């Protein structure tokens, strides 16, 4: 489904990503982990098209690296932002209508209603998305917008951050349901190891812009290099 080959991003003298390569099979849920500043969001920005890196990004075998942001969405890459970015001045429903029309190229009110209902936003559908939603609702809207473009690949950037434990558990169940209901391939950035263990089929670890581990969550979190990256000391 997704293959990254030698992806490198430099901001002036800083190398944010260095020669990152990995692939992802259809239907997988990949956890992207690493300490703050490891390059996780930068990697999301390169896959979704906000940043154009060196290297190749293949979506179903097609190199999408030269495609502008809006064309990546139309190619089937949906994403959320760590800090929710609703479309201002629009209602929740209008956010989804715009996303569906421009991202999926069609108008299907039934599908919009289905997504609103699935993401538990039906009651908030006519509210102003930017000013009348709570944080948890904004996070659900982020996912709903991404679903509206009918993605093949969904990039979730810390969608569980800032939620208290009960809400986090419910949200995690929702993500599992979403994966099976919409048949998606998902990459999720998450700090919480328990979440990765529960949710993901595989995990990739970044540290200082480099990929340091790639395997099942169990394998990855036993890896001494990963433990060192989190604790700052070699595992005894």
């Amino acid at each position, binding site marked *: 489904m997704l293959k990254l080959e030698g992806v490198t991003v430099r901001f002036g003298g800083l190398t944010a990503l260095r020669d990152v390569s990995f692939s992802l099979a259809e239907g997988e849920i990949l956890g992207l982990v690493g300490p703050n500043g490891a390059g996780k969001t930068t990697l999301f920005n390169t896959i979704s098209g906000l940043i154009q890196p060196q290297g190749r990004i293949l979506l179903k075998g097609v190199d999408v690296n030269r495609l502008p*942001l*809006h064309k990546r969405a139309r190619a089937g890459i949906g994403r959320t*932002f760590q800090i929710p*970015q*609703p479309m201002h001045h629009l209602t929740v429903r*209008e956010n989804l209508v715009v996303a569906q029309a*421009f991202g999926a190229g069609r*108008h299907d009110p039934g599908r919009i209603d289905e997504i609103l209902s699935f993401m538990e936003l039906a009651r908030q559908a006519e509210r102003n998305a930017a000013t009348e939603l709570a944080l948890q609702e904004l996070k659900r809207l982020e996912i709903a*917008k991404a679903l509206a473009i009918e993605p093949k690949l969904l990039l979730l950037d810390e969608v569980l951050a800032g939620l208290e434990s009960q809400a986090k558990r419910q949200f995690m169940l929702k993500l599992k349901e979403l994966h099976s209901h919409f048949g998606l391939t998902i990459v999720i950035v998450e700090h919480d190891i328990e979440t990765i263990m529960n949710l993901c089929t595989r995990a990739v670890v970044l540290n200082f812009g480099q990929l340091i581990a790639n395997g099942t969550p169990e394998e990855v979190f036993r890896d001494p290099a990963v433990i060192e990256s989190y604790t700052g000391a070699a595992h005894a």
Partner: protein
Amino acid sequence: MSSHVPSVSRPSSWPSSIVFVGIALVLAALPLAAGAGNYFLGLLISALILAGISLAWALLGNLGGMVSFGHAAFFGVGSYASALLSAKLGLPVLLSVPLAGVIAVGASLLMIPALRLSGPYFALAILAYSQIFRILATELSWLTGGAAGFQAIPQLPTVLGLDLASRSGSYVLLVVVVALCALVYALVRRSLVGTALRAIADSEDATRVVGVNSMLLKAWMLALSAFITGVFGALNAHIIGFLEPDYAFSGVWSVLPIIAAIFGGYRTTFGPIGGAVIIYLFDQVVAKSIIAVGHQILLGFLLAAMILLAPNGLLGLAERFLKGRRDAEA
């Protein structure tokens, strides 16, 4: 616009819009019915020219979030284009006016690279750009008459027995053109493209990641705004019959529309029109009678008061008042 985007019928509030249009047309007909004199009609004609540019400015500001300080460029290009097409090539005035709008669109294409900029950077870029055309109009004296000005601009013709060159004829024509532009603005605003453009203003990345080609949509809005401004520049040229670069490209055509649109409520369709009429009449009738020289200072006070008391403008204030009454009744 884009074959990728399906046409979608948007939820609308047509009945209230029709009432609004009806009231506006009745108000527009009042001066004629009351037998207003040429002086007052002249003021209204100038106010409607300003209303047209304000509408075009608000279209760009509201749909796409581009704050322009350079609409004088489109106004001036439209003025000169129509004057030259009709006077030198002998084209009928009613053909040269829309063509002038098209030429203003051509001029706006030069601004497309600046669409990558936002906020004050875009505003400064378009301000600098507008100066280029003033200099061109001055330097190309073999074509434009240069600083000495361009005279003998053909007048508006008579259509269906109505002499458009007369004050009442020009007034009727401008009411119709302003109404048509408001209709186009309202239709664009209600469309799916307009909905996306409203979002682009404050959340461009959020729209791009769901597949919106923001650059293309903003370019369309810039072109539409330039067309409307160019048409009003052209109509003004045929009404006043004389042009010179410092007048046609004056900063007044960039600044006054902003004041009018913000005063009336630039996020609404009728706000810029109402704002322009009130601002212009206030300046010419009230402010001038209080302070003969430097009367524009009162405009500044009026705008400052409006921004402090009602940041959404006159129409926003009216909506708040009506909503308050409805809530009180409920």
